[in-house]
């Protein structure tokens, strides 16, 4: 989800790409080492605004006066449930809409992919925790995946495996690193002919490359507050590139490196979070600037649950 989320978030943009990647930020997310207590749950509603006016055509950084600024907005609902104190389940569904400030490209909008995650803490000792996360996502609507950069997603079914390691000092300062591998299914497009690399394929099936991501995060947390800075890198394990002066395609090897800040304030049941990130380098993606804000509501779904 994170990934997916991010995907959504970020993704949209030409950047789209990276579906792969991700990070989103919530009460607790598929890419952190924070858990809901047993019998409690957290509902998060978030809004995300991601925009770019420069992108990397292959390795060439450029603008495009026929796109101007490409903007992707996302509204997302996410629910995280504490099954046990070491096992959480998270589901999320985003609604996405895109637009370009110049040119004539038509906007796209719709519900994108539902994602689900299971996060399990298998080691928690002396401030160190190791967590395994598996997730999957599935498109929920028949959106057009190859009208990039205006498409809202890639139509891939995905499966993600992630390892998250965190060290937290008694002062509340922590460091987290994670890495993920994302399997992405083939997709079908409306056309039955397309180029991948220099080969013309005469089929409507498109092989979308798998992807991975890596992240390092440094932060501080206490009972009410969490704040961190982070760096993220995501890329595909293969794929082709945006052809000269042409649009992106789902087979592209989208790579991006982003840095950002995340903060959460949740004094009681109700909380808020914000996230800001900026792509600093990439290939076949837009140089997105992304802002996200969310409202969190934590509650006990079984009476005996405690907060």
């Amino acid at each position: 989800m994170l990934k997916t989320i991010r995907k959504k978030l970020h993704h949209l943009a030409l950047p789209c790409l990276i579906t792969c990647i991700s990070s989103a930020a919530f009460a607790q997310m598929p890419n952190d080492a924070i858990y809901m207590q047993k019998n409690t749950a957290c509902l998060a509603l978030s809004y995300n605004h991601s925009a770019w006016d420069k992108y990397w055509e292959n390795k060439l950084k450029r603008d495009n006066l026929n796109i101007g600024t490409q903007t992707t907005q996302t509204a997302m609902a996410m629910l995280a449930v504490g099954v046990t104190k070491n096992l959480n389940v998270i589901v999320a569904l985003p609604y996405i809409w895109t637009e370009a400030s110049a040119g004539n490209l038509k906007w796209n909008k719709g519900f994108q992919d539902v994602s689900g995650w299971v996060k399990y803490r298998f080691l928690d000792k002396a401030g160190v925790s190791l967590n395994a996360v598996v997730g999957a996502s599935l498109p929920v609507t028949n959106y057009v995946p190859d009208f990039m950069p205006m498409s809202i997603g890639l139509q891939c079914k995905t499966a993600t495996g992630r390892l998250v390691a965190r060290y937290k000092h008694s002062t509340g300062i922590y460091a987290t690193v994670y890495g993920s591998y994302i399997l992405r299914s083939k997709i079908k497009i409306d056309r039955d002919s397309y180029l991948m690399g220099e080969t013309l394929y005469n089929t409507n099936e498109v092989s979308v490359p798998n992807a991975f991501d890596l992240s390092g995060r440094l932060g501080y947390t206490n009972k009410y507050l969490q704040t961190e800075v982070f760096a993220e890198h995501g890329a595909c394990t293969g794929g082709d590139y945006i052809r000269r002066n042409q649009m992106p395609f789902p087979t592209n090897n989208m790579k991006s490196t982003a840095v950002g800040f995340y903060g959460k304030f949740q004094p009681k049941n109700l909380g808020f979070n914000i996230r800001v990130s900026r792509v600093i380098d990439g290939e076949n993606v837009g140089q997105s600037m992304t802002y996200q804000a969310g409202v969190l509501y934590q509650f006990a779904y079984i009476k005996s649950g405690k907060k």
Partner: protein
Amino acid sequence: MKFMHKSTNTSLARTGIFSLTGGLLLAVTLFSCSKSVNDPAAAVNIPSTIDANAGTWKTFVLASSSEITVAEPKAAGSTEYLAEIKKLKESIGGVTAGQRDLVNYWGAGAAYRWNEITRELAARYNSPPAPNAEGKYPVPDAANPLADPKFPFANPPYAARALAYLSVAQYDALVSAWNYKFKYNRKAPSKTDATVQALLPVSDLPSYPSEDAVVAAASVEILKAMFPGEVPFLEAKLAEHKNSRLWAGMNVESDITAGEALGKAVGQKIMARAKADGMGAANNQAKTQEMIANAAKIGITKTWLSQEFPSRPPMLPTYGFLQPWNFNAATVVVLRPKAPPLIDSPEFKENMDELLSIAKKQTREQARIANYWADGVGSYTPPGHWHRKAAMLCHENNFSEVRTARTFALLGTAVQDAGVCCWDAKYYYYYPRPNQMDHAVKTSVGLPNFPSYTSGHSMFSGAAAEVLSYIFPKEKEKLNAMAVEASVSRIYGLIHYRFDCEEGLATGHKVGAYAVQRAQTDGAQ
């Protein structure tokens, strides 16, 4: 080969998957992980007839099938021929698995494969130049084809023409080859010597000159001119194709040599026409002032403007002056569609309202149709789409090599004629695109950079459906439905008014009828 290349991708993907462990395996089972795509290889073609009289069929550019001379081959009992047969047997004996794949690949049909190769080149070169730092669009340079921008920009008129010349060269060369095949009547190697174990089905078609070498050499002669940056690629394909016939035991060396010489000579004759057909002057931007003034004079109150930033010069404004294939330049004017509705007339408004309503609420099915037929940048264009359809129909119907080439030539010339007529109309009326008139009409496919009236897709498709329906009468209903869908796809994609499409489709059918007239009298019935 392409197929093998894809298999390689698959195995890499699997390796990646198996290296993962644990919980992921569960996730893996949720969906297929294979990255191989379903792009089935065409089977070896077994012609249902050898079309023995094809040496008498009417040629397009050559005066007759004997215009190019082919020398008489050595007799079957000659020392030279026996030596060739001996060498051929050794060649068959040493065939590797990879060579065997190539034998089967080319066995799908010579014209079939070269048409497919040309569509791939068209897609690879279908890339509009990027603006430079001064906001100008550099013009591709044939003398420096691999620089940025690459030459050619294989847009629809360019692709239509390349495919037309390719097909005409293949056809005229094959009609010539058939003439000599039956004149000299040299049997296939395996029919002369029963111990030659050919790897492909052998018919009674005489083998001298080799029809494969004829098609390959004629094709390469055209394609080297059309895609000058691809000479090494084309020469490698030519060598591979010729070799495949030796590996297969289908031709001896002298069959190939004679075929190559004939194909090359015919290709040169066809290229002589190409050099004089007006393409060199098809991008005469200086002419647009006059065209705009004329359109204003005949009542087009708002003429077309490029909707790109920076403003891009319109695509090939004088392509409408090219020499057509199946009629003369005067007929282009006769075929010119009636004037489009006056801007802001009730009819115009009605058409615009339809687009505004689709712009607000395009259905997923409308988007699908628009995307399926988009054939835009990076594709083989609508002419390529119809050539692919023709290739599939010829293959399904087990057409002979020469009948396949005839189909491509009739289709290719009709489709290019449609392009010429369409470009004539576009620049005669210089009519604005819908989104120039109302920016609320955002497009769901790429917006072409030239005037609106009439729709190029509609004209190409009308002409193609007309020709293919004549050759494949059982498919007529389906072909016409395809053409209608291609035509309305441009309304659904929000880049054309309905009247652009309807008028274009009807005119396309009229253009195609000229090629059908030719087909009725070319001797191939």
